[in-house]
């Protein structure tokens, strides 16, 4: 017998269910007066540094129908590539940018819109630079454990080509599932497909 590592098991995940809004975006589902504002609604203010961008995200099920009861959280670096986090040891991030947003998908269209800034590049652990990206976490009824993925930027062709995470995708035909498209209004459109030919690359990370 060896010594015990005394490790605990992670609490198992359960689906967020159809009523996720009650707990995480109560004002969105008309439970008002409890919190002044839903957390993560506003990501930028007048003093936030960097290029303003709009990200429109949708999540599609296996029939191609957008989910109208999903909730998405995003996490990203500031315009200099620094995270506003105690675990960020490289320097102080923009104090006017938390880097975190949360939105419920619209109950009619299935779309959610993030008004944010374009993130800078963040180093990989070996010092190579990752391409600018936004981390996504998706929960909904029918999703048993939150799905993790990333959105990359279509105009960053060179940076995307040298990104160490995208390089790990064996089937290159799937890389475009992580790259947003540019809409006519300039917004980044990021369609997340849970199944099918266009299934998004999800991470175990």
């Amino acid at each position, binding site marked *: 017998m060896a010594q015990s590592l005394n*490790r*605990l*098991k*992670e*609490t*198992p*995940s*359960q*689906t967020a*269910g159809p*009523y*996720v*809004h*009650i*707990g*995480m975006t109560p004002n969105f589902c008309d*439970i008002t007066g*409890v*919190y002044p504002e839903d957390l993560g609604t506003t990501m930028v203010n007048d003093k936030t540094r960097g290029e303003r961008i709009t990200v429109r995200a949708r999540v599609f*099920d*296996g*029939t191609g129908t957008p*989910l109208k009861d999903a909730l998405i959280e995003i*996490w990203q670096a500031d315009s200099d590539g620094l*995270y*506003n*986090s*105690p*675990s*960020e*040891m490289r*320097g102080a*991030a923009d104090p006017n940018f938390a*880097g975190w947003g949360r939105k419920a998908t619209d109950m009619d269209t299935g779309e959610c819109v993030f008004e944010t800034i374009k993130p800078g590049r*963040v*180093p*990989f*652990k*070996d*010092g190579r630079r990752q391409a600018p*990206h936004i*981390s996504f*976490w998706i*929960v909904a*009824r*029918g*999703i*048993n*454990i939150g799905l*993790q993925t990333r959105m990359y930027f279509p105009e960053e062709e060179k940076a995307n080509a040298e990104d160490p*995470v995208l390089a*790990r995708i064996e089937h290159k035909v799937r890389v475009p599932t992580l790259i947003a498209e540019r809409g006519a209004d300039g917004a980044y459109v990021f369609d997340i497909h*849970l*199944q099918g030919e266009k*299934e*998004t*690359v*999800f991470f*175990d*990370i």
Partner: protein
Amino acid sequence: MSADPLSNRKPETGAFFQRDRLWHPPAFTPGYKTSVLRSPQKALLSLDNTLSEITGPVFGHNILGELDNDLIHNFARPGESAIGPRIIVYGRVLDERGKGVPGALLEFWQANAGGRYRHKKEGYLAALDPNFGGCGRTITDEEGNYAFRTIQPGPYPWPNGVNDWRPAHIHFSIFGHGFAQRLITQMYFEGDPMIWQCPIVKTIPDRAAVETLIAALDREATIPMDARAYKFDIVLRGRRSSMFENRLEGN
């Protein structure tokens, strides 16, 4: 860096332990019908954490209102309170190393005592309680402790099988220190026979894993003539020490 200047804690910068995906429910669980068309079918891309997953935002206690952790009163009219068995839910947020997780944001939501949610997609005929909203939140203290007051929710029927019912439960969203620790789960109540009949509970393959979601009735912590107590500890992913990790170039 936005660490609390008053804290003696050293920031942790190591990657999180890999998730035991056999302990969690798989994505595709046909007994829970909605998962069939919402489950990714291709293999996940497994990667060690980068800075993008090791880091996470900080939620300060200043976001909390006085009644945020009191679901009996936070939606009630002045002088009134929600109807139902009064309970305290308390516990600790730990990581897999057994360390308390301070500053974790916990958000919870639930049905009222009759099993009815305050939501327009809800179809159960049980009555709404005008004094119950169903949401609350808190942030763990320096040792990872949390507590809130609520009413015990009721079980309710849902359209999956013809006659499926959910056991009484409280949903939890937990935000630890890193974006990779993000977790949503549900808490069940000790002694409830409905737990073992539930298709959503059954998405978890291991009975021992389900048992970690069942809060224990704690008669010692029960408040006389006021509220029973249930203890529910939550474990988030642990992380490596960064002592021997490769240093970034130039650092």
